[in-house]
């Protein structure tokens, strides 16, 4: 092993083996849910730290037929995905436990964790792919476990409906992507990114534009861009809460990573030419998302529209130069993940005892002040109010977009924030202003839920104005 130069692959291999181990233990050793849970905790945290502390975490090589390259963006994106996987797993824990009066809401924790790990691994592949084939494989590995996750409560009719919609829409998206890839291959005559980039740089023709259009359509489904976002509210509403959270972070992060790899990789020579397309998609998406959220009364449907709008905001950053865009997107994904999971943790606790609607939040701040504060923190962060992390995240994104002179789009996005603030305030109003309703079941927090909520709230408050996270990400790109 003295000459082993491929140490950058260690976290990926570990993550790939991991689900087999967890499911294997569940099948052959013990059926207790504690074991896979502890193993997953240990494994996810270990992989996260491996990513942080292996200085050799970047490099490139060829495995079988896959060209593999791990750069700074890849490493940081892996960390985002690991954070999301870990939080998603923590969130799901309560759903596998027996309530005081009823059966657990979900079963088979080992397989669930395995599916999350597979989806995360798919994201790993997407950010390290160097050719279209690997790229496509990664995207599919990331997506297919999501179909299973969405249908986890197979007896629930809304869940099944959601999963069906998701599979149908996802397959159409995949078809679009494959079509785009095939034209791209036809245009460049090679699958490898470097050669495609060279071909794109040497000249364009309509074939390339058709391919770009199809690629954007395909990824538009997964990133919930206008006009392909319509599936999101139904799926977010129908899927189990932890799955919705994973869907809104991991799946979105993977999709945006896909775009980053494409725009700053093979398509970088024509970035200024596709900028109008990106700007249009960004502007319309965030506007539509914000408008859609205005009239919602169910929490997860509301979060679906909110996350559609967030996708629009992230797109704004894609207009900037490579380093700036990548830094801002990674940073934003971190704070978005933390804020979003915080919201879902609160909704999850509410969902355990009540219906997941705005009405269930009534009097929250009076009965459970800590939950009320956590909710306010996460909503204000998602709305981009300083000094919370969400503001600095959006500031990064807009900074990237404005650096190439897209002031109009940035101004539009910033003004849209006012609409966003309106609907987040609606939610805060339910929790803070409305009088408690005695017909609602009381909420109980376990110690673990409490700790996680405190941890996430503090992160949301601190990650923004303390330069720790953003500086580290920035240093990752400029060392």
């Amino acid at each position, binding site marked *: 092993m003295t000459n082993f130069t491929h140490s950058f692959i260690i976290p990926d291999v570990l993550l790939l083996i991991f689900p087999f181990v967890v499911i294997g233990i569940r099948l052959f050793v013990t059926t207790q849910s504690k074991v896979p849970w502890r193993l997953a905790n240990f494994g996810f945290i270990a992989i996260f730290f491996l990513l942080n502390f292996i200085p050799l975490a970047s490099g490139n090589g060829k495995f079988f037929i896959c060209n593999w390259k791990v750069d700074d963006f890849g490493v940081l994106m892996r960390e985002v995905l690991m954070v999301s996987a870990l939080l998603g797993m923590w969130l799901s824990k309560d759903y596998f436990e027996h309530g005081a009066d009823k059966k657990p809401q979900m079963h088979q924790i080992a397989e669930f964790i395995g599916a999350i790990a597979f989806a995360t691994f798919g994201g790993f592949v997407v950010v390290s792919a160097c050719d279209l084939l690997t790229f496509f494989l990664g995207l599919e590995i990331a997506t297919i476990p999501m179909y299973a996750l969405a249908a986890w409560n197979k007896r629930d009719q809304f869940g099944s409906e959601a999963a069906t919609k998701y599979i149908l829409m996802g397959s159409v998206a995949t078809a679009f992507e494959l079509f785009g890839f095939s034209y791209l291959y036809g245009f460049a005559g090679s699958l490898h990114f470097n050669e495609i980039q060279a071909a794109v740089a040497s000249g364009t023709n309509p074939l390339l534009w058709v391919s770009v259009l199809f690629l954007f359509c395909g990824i538009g489904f997964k990133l919930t861009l206008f006009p392909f976002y319509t599936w999101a509210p139904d799926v977010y509403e129908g899927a189990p809460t932890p799955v919705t959270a994973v869907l809104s972070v991991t799946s979105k992060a993977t999709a945006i990573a896909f775009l980053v790899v494409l725009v700053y990789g093979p398509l970088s020579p024509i970035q200024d030419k596709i900028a109008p397309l990106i700007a249009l998609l960004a502007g319309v998406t965030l506007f539509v998302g914000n408008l859609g959220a205005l009239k919602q009364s169910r929490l997860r449907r509301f979060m679906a529209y909110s996350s559609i709008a967030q996708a629009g905001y992230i797109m704004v950053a894609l207009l900037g130069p490579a380093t700036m865009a990548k830094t801002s997107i990674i940073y934003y994904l971190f704070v978005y993940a933390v804020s979003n999971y915080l919201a879902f943790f609160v909704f999850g606790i509410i969902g355990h005892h009540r219906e997941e609607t705005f009405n269930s939040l009534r009097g929250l701040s009076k009965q459970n002040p800590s939950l009320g504060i956590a909710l306010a923190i996460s909503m204000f962060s998602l709305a981009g109010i300083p000094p919370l992390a969400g503001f600095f995240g959006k500031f990064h994104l807009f900074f990237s977009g404005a650096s190439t002179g897209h002031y109009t789009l940035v101004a539009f996005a910033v003004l849209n924030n*006012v609409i966003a603030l309106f609907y987040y305030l609606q939610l*805060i*109003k339910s929790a803070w*202003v409305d009088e408690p309703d005695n017909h609602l079941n009381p909420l109980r927090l376990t110690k673990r839920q409490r700790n996680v909520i405190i941890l996430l709230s503090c992160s949301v408050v601190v990650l923004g104005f303390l330069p720790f996270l953003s500086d580290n990400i920035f240093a990752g790109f400029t060392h």
Partner: protein
Amino acid sequence: MNTILFNSIWVLPLLTVLVCALIPASYSKTLRTIHVTSATLVLGIVCYLTYSVYALSGTPSDPAAAPLALRFFTDIPWLSVFNAHYIVGADGLNMLLLALTAFIVWAGVLVSLHIKGNQKIFFALIQLLATSVYGVYMSFDLVLFFVFYEMEALCMYLMIACYGSGKRDYGGKKLTLTLAFGSSMILATLFGLFFESGANSWNLIEISKTTLPMDFQMWAFPLMFMGFAVSSSLFPFHFWSPDGHSAAPTAVSMLAAGVMMKMGAYGCLRVAMFLMPEAAKIWLPYVVALLIFNVVLGPFIALRHKDLKYITAYSSISHLGLIFLGLAALTPIGLRGASLQMISHGFLTGLFFATIGMIYERTHTRDITEMGGIMRKMPFLGVGFVLAGFAGLGLPGFSGFIAESTIFIGAFQQDSTITRVVTVLAILSITTTAVYILQTANRMLHGPLPQKYEGLTDGTFREKLVIVVLVACLLFIGVCPGWISEILDQSIAPIFAKISAAGL
């Protein structure tokens, strides 16, 4: 040492919040003691530093901050990703505004000691609001400035919607969203300032040394100026203020009208006009035209209202209009008058809302037609209200007179017809102000006392203390304005130098 004290102005309230977060809400007396101590401590520090700034005047200021005459200058790298720094400093203008804020926060904490609801959260929010206002006045880095500027939105909504009265949710939302609209207009232009100036810095002083491209200034200046003006309720963005103020609890009304609305005018002067003087010269005459609403129609609307807080809100709208008149005059005297008016109006509107709050706590109504004869039962509060009114209508001896007459002189100096016409109209509108203030005082304080108010008592010691201190401040500025002007002039000189150097 003074620099550390200066930085502690915004850190102390934040520390108070953190300390109080660890104390259970049932220890309400301890919590109140901590908050009062903290507010008093900050007030002491600010007064001491204001005096230091005065004592230091004439000595050379920090060379790193030239051309601005800043003391206690601190510049620490903060977010390296976009080169944001932590830059704070004090010149006369912001030091006086800090002093104003400290007084109002102190008074606000004292008047709300017995507020209903979760006191722990309420006081935490007040301290957060104080942090944000202090931060706005102190910072000279645009990112830092904006972070503090928009932080208020977070506190304001919760305080109004949870602790307010009447249409509190509506008022709170209206206020927060309108202010957020204003700050998003500012944010949109901030990026332009960074990239178009070529300074690659958010440092206000660095950007002021460059000349921004004219075509950029032409769209950015109105956007930014109006963005700031939203929070100072310049027409047509004044509509949030009456509803917001009337729904807010006393302390929040005091803070909102007393110090938060000055943040907008301060931003107009410090950021918009200072960085884009060329465009300012072109656009400000249009602002003067908008002022006709604020200064001329504002008092007439106040005349028609029956709710005390609505009357005060419209009176604020007209007084804040005068600040913009001073700014738009673009003369040193006008700018000095505008700054004086910011401070003077802060104290007087603080006093106004404080007395209204105290009276409302007793009568449970703010409708002046239902009140009468209050002077007999509450002479102290009544006199406090009347004195605030006198200061508001510009009675010599109070701060209002000094500030308004300076503005009128400054504005009349500018030889543009529209400014002069508006100045004359503004001077005439003082008559209307006198009418509504005297009419309100008359209906409320004199006449027959309704039966239900027989049992009312005068202010407690705490309330009297607040009134006495605020009245003393008003008188102090009114009687020895030279002291204040001396501090102000050294900070206005560099701003005016930049404006007068700007060619068209």
